[in-house]
Every structure is written in structure tokens, then in C-alpha cells.
């Protein structure tokens, strides 16, 4: 099987936890919930200091359309609401909850309303955001404009970054819920068919998902493992040979794409009345026992690392996300937020930090780019502060997958310079 898209790289995947079971992470002493764990407007608290909260209770919401409410992942007491440093570099108001231990289970309730509107409403009320990492409010993605029709739902089971096996584990153990969630998505956007894209290094996941599919309008396509196969636009092209135009959305070409974990969360919301309060996270890298953990949102990263036997050697970087696109944390006490699917510890990181002027013109960045860009051209213009020129070589089309920087033999900080160009272009 050949790779179904142009460009990309093949890093060492090191999926050490792909066969690991999903363990429950320990409920920490304190849960920290930043009021913005999604793309869009931050929420405002609905509770105040000292209030008692129940597991699953909505504790923050926003009236803005591009937003997602936040729910308490534990029963307990609101200890404080204050500004706290976040992984994004700026401080965010966060709700701190002290768990009290009593919880109730979420059970399947009667016959839920499966109308388009009800599903979308349930998705919004459950605070579901894109769990592949983008954290876009899911209900918005399912709210299709009246003039657009969706013919295919794409489900993303690729998990193309090294180390991460959260979606893999979910597909192996919760395939039924994922497929049911997919059916809900199909109803919500009124699409007649769905394709699930899974990379070929997840044979058990493919098998387990295949067992749950009986209808002809849902099928699984096995894709050759290559990074970034799981990037939305790349995936849609690989599965449907349709290109999402620059600056457009998949819905503009009749497609809606969701992550498998998002589909499962949608199932939970509609059938179990369970909001987004926990997710699977792979803890990998230099920890004593890498694991797949089922984690309550808001659990400090340190707690997860301790669940894995703690650091195996002095850590230099603790990354929220995968090694290609993850964010390095300043502090391992930061909480796990909705979109984080992996905590990666590195005690001897590779430094990708040279200047674009060190370029030897090997063209490996050009060959690695899945968007057909010339990364070194954008980065060189950025280095010289020529952002108009950077824009003219399509800097804004870059989705910062990092394949170029990975491939660069001079270890030039390509993505860093391209990001800089994109920020400057956005400002003007």
C-alpha cells in the first residue's frame, strides 16, 4: 500500500502502549479547570467559592456562540477561583475543586431524543470539543449552514503522532460507543455515509471496530501509517480524494470530520447524559511505566506521571500532546485539559533550534510538507522580518504539523519561524 498523500515523514513511532489496557488515573487532591479549554470565548463561572458541586454539574458557560461549557469532573467543593498560569503562556482564570469522593455513575436513560436539533443541543450542553487536539466546539461543527449539505462523515482514528495510543486503546475497548456516536453525528449532519480512517499500525483497533459495523453505509479504510495522516485536510484527501480549499472548511465540500474520542463523547452525552469530564490520555516517554490512563479533566499532570511510577530520569521537557505538535509545559502541576491526548516526558530532548540562514538547501523540508509549501522560504523571510514575502509563499496555509522541522538535517527551527510569520501576518 502506498502513502495516500504527498509529503509527510516516517518518524520512529514508539507506540509502546498500544497493547496497554486503560487504567483509571487516581483522582487527585485538587482539580484545576481553566475557563478556556476550547477555541473561542472563555466561559464565566456559574458557581462561586465554597459551593458544593456534583460530578457532571455544569459550572461554567458562555453566551458566545463559539464556546463550550465546562463541567465538574468530580463531586466536591469549590476551593477557589483564580488566575493561574496555563500551558498557552498566559494566565487563565481557573476553578479549583477539592474532590469529596462521592460520585454517581452515568447510566443509560430511556429513549433519548434523536432529532438533529436534540443531538446538537446535547453535544453543546455536554461541553464536547474536538478531542483530537484542536478543541473546536463540537456542536458548532455539527451545526451545518442551511446552504450546505454533508454527504460523508469522516471519523479520524489515525492517531498519527508517535507515542500516542489513546485513540487506539479507545477503539480497542469502546468500539461500540464510538460507532453509535458516529451514527449520532451522521444524524446530526444528515449525512448518508461515513468512512473511518485508521492507520495500519493499529490492527487490533481495526479489528475491534470492524466487529461493530454491520451497515453498508459505514466503512473502515486502512491507511498507510505516515505522519501527518491524521491531519483533517490530509485525511479527507486520503479517504475521499477531495481537497479542502485554502481558507475553507470541510463542510464546504460536503464533509464533516471528527475524532473517534469525540464520537464516543457524543454517545456519552446523548445516551448516558454524561458531559465531557474524562478522557483517555497516553503518558509516555521517560516515565517508569508508560500507560494509557482514563483521566478526569483538570487532573494535574504530575498526578498522572506519578500514576506511571514517576519520572525514570530527571525530565527536561514535559509535553502536553504529541512530540510533533505538543506544547511544552512550564510546570508539571498544570492540569490536563480537554484536548490533551498525551503527556510526553523527555529527559534528553532533541534541539531543533538553528537559524534559517544555516540552510544547506537539501529540500527535505519541501519533500516533507503535506501542504506543498516551501518551509525554508517562509522561515527565511520570517527571519528577515519580511512578512509580506512570507505571505506570498503561502505562510498562512501551514498547519504547523512539524514534518519540515523533523526532516531538516540542520535542525532549523522552521515551525517556530513560520509561526512567527503567521502571527505577524494575522496582526496586519
Amino acid at each position: 500500500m502506498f502513502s495516500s498523500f504527498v509529503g509527510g515523514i516516517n518518524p520512529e513511532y514508539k507506540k509502546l502502549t498500544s497493547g496497554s489496557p486503560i487504567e483509571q488515573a487516581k483522582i487527585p487532591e485538587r482539580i484545576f479547570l481553566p475557563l478556556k479549554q476550547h477555541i473561542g470565548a472563555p466561559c464565566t463561572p456559574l458557581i462561586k467559592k465554597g459551593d458544593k458541586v456534583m460530578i457532571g454539574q455544569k459550572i461554567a458557560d458562555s453566551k458566545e456562540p463559539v464556546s463550550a461549557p465546562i463541567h465538574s469532573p468530580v463531586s466536591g467543593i469549590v476551593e477557589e477561583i483564580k488566575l493561574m498560569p496555563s500551558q498557552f503562556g498566559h494566565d487563565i482564570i481557573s476553578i479549583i475543586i477539592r474532590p469529596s469522593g462521592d460520585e454517581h455513575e452515568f447510566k443509560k436513560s430511556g429513549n433519548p431524543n434523536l432529532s438533529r436539533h436534540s443531538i446538537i443541543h446535547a453535544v453543546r450542553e455536554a461541553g464536547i470539543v474536538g478531542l483530537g487536539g484542536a478543541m473546536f466546539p463540537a456542536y458548532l461543527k455539527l451545526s451545518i449552514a442551511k446552504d450546505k449539505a454533508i454527504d460523508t462523515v469522516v471519523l479520524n482514528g489515525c492517531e498519527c503522532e508517535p507515542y500516542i495510543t489513546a485513540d487506539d486503546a479507545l477503539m480497542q475497548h469502546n468500539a461500540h460507543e464510538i460507532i453509535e456516536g458516529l451514527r449520532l453525528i451522521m444524524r446530526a449532519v444528515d449525512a448518508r455515509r461515513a468512512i473511518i480512517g485508521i492507520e495500519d499500525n493499529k490492527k487490533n483497533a481495526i479489528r475491534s471496530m470492524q466487529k461493530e459495523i454491520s451497515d453498508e453505509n459505514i466503512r473502515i479504510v486502512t491507511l498507510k501509517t505516515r505522519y501527518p495522516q491524521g491531519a483533517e485536510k490530509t485525511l479527507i484527501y486520503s479517504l475521499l480524494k477531495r481537497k479542502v480549499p485554502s481558507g475553507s472548511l470541510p463542510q464546504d465540500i460536503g464533509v464533516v470530520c471528527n475524532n473517534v474520542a469525540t464520537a464516543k463523547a457524543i454517545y456519552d452525552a446523548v445516551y448516558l447524559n454524561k458531559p465531557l469530564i474524562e478522557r483517555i490520555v497516553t503518558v509516555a516517554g521517560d516515565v517508569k511505566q508508560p500507560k494509557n490512563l482514563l483521566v478526569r479533566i483538570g487532573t494535574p499532570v504530575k498526578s498522572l506521571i506519578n500514576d506511571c511510577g514517576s519520572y525514570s530520569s530527571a525530565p527536561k521537557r514535559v509535553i502536553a500532546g504529541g512530540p510533533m505538535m505538543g506544547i511544552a509545559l512550564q510546570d508539571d502541576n498544570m492540569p490536563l485539559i480537554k484536548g490533551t491526548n498525551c503527556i510526553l516526558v523527555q529527559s534528553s530532548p532533541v534541539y531543533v533550534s538553528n537559524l534559517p540562514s544555516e540552510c544547506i538547501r537539501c529540500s527535505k523540508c519541501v519533500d516533507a510538507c503535506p501542504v506543498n509549501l516551501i518551509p525554508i522560504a517562509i522561515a527565511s523571510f520570517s527571519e528577515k522580518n519580511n512578512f509580506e514575502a512570507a505571505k506570498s509563499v503561502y505562510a498562512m496555509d501551514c498547519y504547523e504539523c512539524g514534518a519540515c522541522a523533523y526532516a531538516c538535517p540542520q535542525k532549523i527551527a522552521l515551525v517556530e519561524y513560520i509561526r512567527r510569520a503567521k502571527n505577524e501576518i494575522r496582526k496586519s
Partner: protein
Amino acid sequence: MKSGNLELAQSPHISSRLTSEKLKLLFILSLVPVIIASVYFFGFYSLLIILSSTISASLTELIIQRFFLKSKLGIRPGTVITGLLLGLILPSTVPLWIPAIGSCFAIAIAKYAFGVGNNIFNPALVGRAFLVASWPVLMTSWAADAVTSATPLAFSKLNSFSSLVQAHGSKLALYKSLFIGNVSGSIGETSALAIIISAIFLLYAGVIDWRIPSAYVASSFILSFILGQDPVFHLLSGSLLFAAVFMATDYMSSPLTKSGRIIFGLCCGILTILIRIYAGAPEGVTYAILLMNALVPLIDRFTVPKPFGWMRK
């Protein structure tokens, strides 16, 4: 763990293990089959030629670093590569000061005068062009089996292709000699077999991209056929294969864009054949590539691709 103990760095946090150093070392390694062939066909003197060229290159670099740049002394692998390549494209009969001077010129002018890490022209080819211009007789005294003889290309151009075939007995015998390397020519260029082995290694290791060599070979083959010559002969003779694999693929002097590399390879092949057939010299590779080197910035500028999903508004 508080901030200060943890590093803040931007993604990506992993990178390929194929560093520039490794790429250069792999390239040097890939020259082994060709060096072995040069010794096999032209004797141990070949090694002396290569050594003279490489040592001179390194010494030139050290002198420039010490006295001109006043920078840290260190022999760069790129300089060693230039030295090796220049040695390999010289006739087997040259006195040892030829590679020494040629290398010195290549490093001093083609590399350092342009700014190291910024050379527009392939340094080894610049060195060779300088030598051919300055000592044309020495640079065209070819030998095979220690006997002075014209290269197949020169012979064919001077007399005729059919007389070359006659001299070898049959076309197949000619092809065989060209393929194995049993003909006169530069010490590194004669054995197509050795070059193909190196090429497979370089492609597999990810050191060179397939586009330039393939385009170079394809356009040479097709154009020579169209112009009524024997395409297999052209492919296997002279330094075409050697240049397509080792010279035209030089990172610094070839285009960045994918279509640019194809155009570059195609034009190198076209120019090589045109010079071979219509110009004064029997071999056209050196000038073909140097000419195309000069056009690389233009090619890059006009072949910037549209991003994936670009729509005309």
C-alpha cells in the same frame, strides 16, 4: 516541578536522526564503489590523484580559515567531498599537482569566495572547468590499461560511432565495456555499474532525491534518440551518470522546489547532449551543469508551487 527546571521549547520535540553530518558521511561512503572501480581500472595511481585532491582541498580550507577568516580551524566534510569528487573526474594520467591546484581553486573560489554554505556553482565542477581551461592538453590525455587512448565519446566524435563499435567488435561488446568501466575516461566516471550501486545506496539512505538523476537520465536518453544517436551509448559514456548521481544532486547548487528539480535535471540532460553533439568538446556535462547552476535561483522563483487546496478566487 516549577518552571526553571522544565524547558520551554516549541514543537516539534523530536527530529530525524539524519543530520547534515550524517548526510555528508553517507555521501562519502557512497563514493567507495566508484573509488574501488577507479583503482581497478586505472591502478593505485588513482588513489594518489584522489588523495592529492582531497589533501589540497583540506589544506586550502585550513589556510583560509587561519589567515583570511581568522576563524576556528576545522576540516568540513563538504570540503572533503569536493576534494574526492574533483579527483574522481580527472584523467588517470594527470601529474599530481593538477588535482592539487584544481582543488585549491575549487575550495578557495567556488566555495569560500562565494561564502561557505552559499556556493552557486558546484565546486568540483568549477575546479575541473578551471583545469580544463588552463591545461587543456594534460586534462585530455586519457588512458586505458596504461595505454593512451581517446575516450569513447572523443573517438566517436572524431571518427564515427560505427567505427567505435567496430573497434569494440559489436554494439553489445561496447555497451558491456561502458557498463563495467573498461574504457578510458576520468578515473571515477567509467564504471556505470559502480555508479549505479552508489546511486541505489544514496537513494535508499535518503541522501539524494530521485528527481534530478531521473530527469537527467531521461532527457539525455530521449534527446539523443531524437537526434539520431545511440541513447544507450550516451547514457553509459562520459561522465553523464557520474554527474547525474553525484554532481547535479549537490544540495547547494540545485533547486529547492520539486518541479524545479525536475526542470533542472531535464535541462542538464538536454544541454549535455546538445554540447556533446554540436559543440567543440566531446563531453558536455561540466558546462551543462555549471550553466544550470547559474539558473537555479530563477528556476526556484518560478516554480513555487501552489499550496494543497489552493483555489483560484
